[in-house]
């Protein structure tokens, strides 16, 4: 195989290409034994726990299987609950306030099903290659295309990160907390999560935070939705949205386009690698991704239902921010419901900030061949952690700067994410169909049919959303 230009010329192990042979049984074992790192040992510890759970599975089917799944869930849940970020939850809330119960309930389910098709491919890529998405793009397509992909990712991630801190500020603003304190709390949580020096601990802390996305469920229950209407809408997709057809179309396209963003592809693949998943874990990875999609869809629908009372009272919520939503909801679902809603927005911002900053750091480390694992101590992988914290600090600082162009950022962040999606999806599909990379795990006919159909829909939605936004803004 031809080496790409950024490869080390040295091949001290005598192999010119990667192999997924088990390390102890490979001819490299003697060389590798002297070069093991802290990261390898931590990953081996995680693998041992999976082995032990598989051993238990042979003795107790239910308990053992639960243990295996418990150990292997994480990246999929995090990526989908991370995607239920502050702007997304506000978008769902605006949908509920504007259109009530109807078409958008099943539509949200459909968008997450499409997201599931895309994210499943990243699980296979990560488990088979043990490489992050950025690294694979650089390896297989070269620096030229690699830097384009990185540019899209970094710009999109930074702008999205800013909107997460806007969400954090707005969510805590409902409780009268000053912006500087709210943003400081957000940064402190991001920092606390990474100081563990263990991927496993980081993942569990972040999942623990992510589950608070469920705060929208009690908020929805307190809104006393018509559950019969919810059931009917899921089956019949009615009533259809009405009003300004251009705005409706824009919302549909935005919802489709925002289902899968480039950071999700990069993040989940890198997290699968950092977790140490292997080809035999792909089934569990699929379960993890499906679980994440189901939870995210349920919480997204809960956000829609929580704001339906605003629809019934004819309140225009199109320009609301988090605190304004909570304040408008307070007389209708009570102080507890409104507080839950505001906390939910805060949580959504925190989890997304952690996931997106980590996604940027993974990509940076993969491209510049510096340590890029949450299993590494701070001193060993300072460029990785600096990128993670630096991007979070810069985004947080921007939110606090008086007269910063936050309005401009909010306006363009979704558009940029959507615009960057078609190339990201093209790279993903090319990689997952690359037999030299994937071996037998390449997409089959039906996987390709589903993936291409979803990709075409997402690309068309992206194109449509981009064009419509431009026309709308002009």
């Amino acid at each position: 195989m031809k080496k790409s230009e950024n490869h080390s010329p040295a091949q001290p192990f005598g192999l010119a290409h990667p192999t997924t042979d088990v390390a102890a049984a490979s001819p490299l074992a003697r060389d590798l034994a002297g070069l093991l790192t802290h990261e390898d040992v931590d990953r081996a510890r995680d693998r041992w726990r999976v082995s032990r759970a598989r051993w238990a599975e042979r003795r107790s089917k239910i308990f053992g299987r639960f243990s295996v799944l418990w150990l292997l869930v994480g990246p999929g849940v995090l990526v989908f609950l991370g995607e239920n970020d502050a702007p997304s939850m506000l978008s769902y809330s605006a949908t509920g306030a504007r259109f009530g119960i109807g078409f958008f309930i099943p539509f949200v389910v459909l968008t997450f099903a499409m997201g599931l098709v895309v994210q499943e491919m990243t699980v296979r890529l990560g488990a088979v290659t043990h490489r992050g998405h950025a690294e694979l793009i650089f390896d297989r397509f070269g620096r030229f295309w690699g830097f384009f992909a990185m540019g899209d990712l970094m710009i999109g991630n930074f702008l999205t990160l800013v909107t997460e801190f806007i969400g954090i500020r707005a969510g805590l603003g409902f409780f009268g907390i000053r912006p500087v304190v709210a943003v400081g709390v957000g940064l402190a949580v991001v920092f606390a999560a990474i100081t563990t020096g263990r991927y496993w601990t980081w993942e569990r802390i972040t999942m623990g935070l992510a589950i608070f996305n469920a705060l929208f469920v009690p908020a929805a229950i307190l809104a006393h939705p018509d559950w019969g209407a919810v059931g009917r809408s899921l089956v019949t997709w009615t009533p259809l949205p009405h009003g300004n057809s251009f705005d409706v179309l824009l919302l549909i396209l935005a919802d489709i386009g925002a289902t899968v963003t480039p950071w999700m592809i990069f993040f989940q693949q890198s997290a699968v690698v950092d977790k140490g998943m292997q080809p035999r874990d792909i089934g569990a990875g699929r379960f993890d991704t499906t679980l994440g999609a189901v939870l995210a869809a349920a919480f997204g629908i809960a956000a829609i239902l929580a704001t339906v009372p605003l629809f019934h009272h004819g309140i225009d919520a199109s320009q609301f921010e988090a605190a304004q939503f909570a304040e408008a909801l307070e007389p209708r679902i009570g102080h507890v419901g409104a507080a839950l809603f505001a906390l939910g927005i805060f949580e959504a911002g925190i989890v997304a900030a952690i996931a997106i900053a980590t996604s940027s750091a993974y990509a940076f480390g993969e491209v510049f061949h510096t340590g890029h694992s949450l299993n590494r101590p701070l001193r060993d992988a300072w460029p990785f952690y600096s990128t993670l914290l630096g991007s979070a600090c810069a985004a947080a600082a921007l939110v606090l700067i008086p007269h910063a162009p936050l309005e401009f950022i909010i306006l363009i962040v979704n558009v940029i994410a959507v615009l960057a999606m078609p190339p990201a999806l093209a790279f993903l599909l090319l990689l997952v169909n690359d037999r030299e990379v994937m071996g037998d795990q390449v997409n089959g006919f039906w996987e390709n049919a589903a993936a291409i159909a979803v990709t075409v829909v997402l690309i068309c939605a992206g194109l449509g959303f981009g064009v419509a936004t431009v026309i709308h803004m002009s």
Partner: protein
Amino acid sequence: MKRQLGSKVDDVKSSNAKTKIGEKAFEPDAGPAAKPDLKHPDVVLSLLEADQVVAAKQRMHFGQRKLSLGVRVLLWGLRIYVVAMLVIVLISAFQAIHSAR
């Protein structure tokens, strides 16, 4: 290139995918009392795939693929689309905010 990549990698990948590699080496029998001594390199290596070890990953890479004309046209088309749309979006957003003020 395919011949160089060779049957070895494909074979290994396919056998991994079907988990036909010796179960004992690939997933060591980890009984409840068998807490591993991870200070021992052999134990660590028995739990990881060769390609999972950091030192191996740093030295071995997938080579660059030859891009067909179709793929190059696709990538360039998407790149031109992104840049052109980005310029239009930025200008439109500036105008929208300016006119709102």
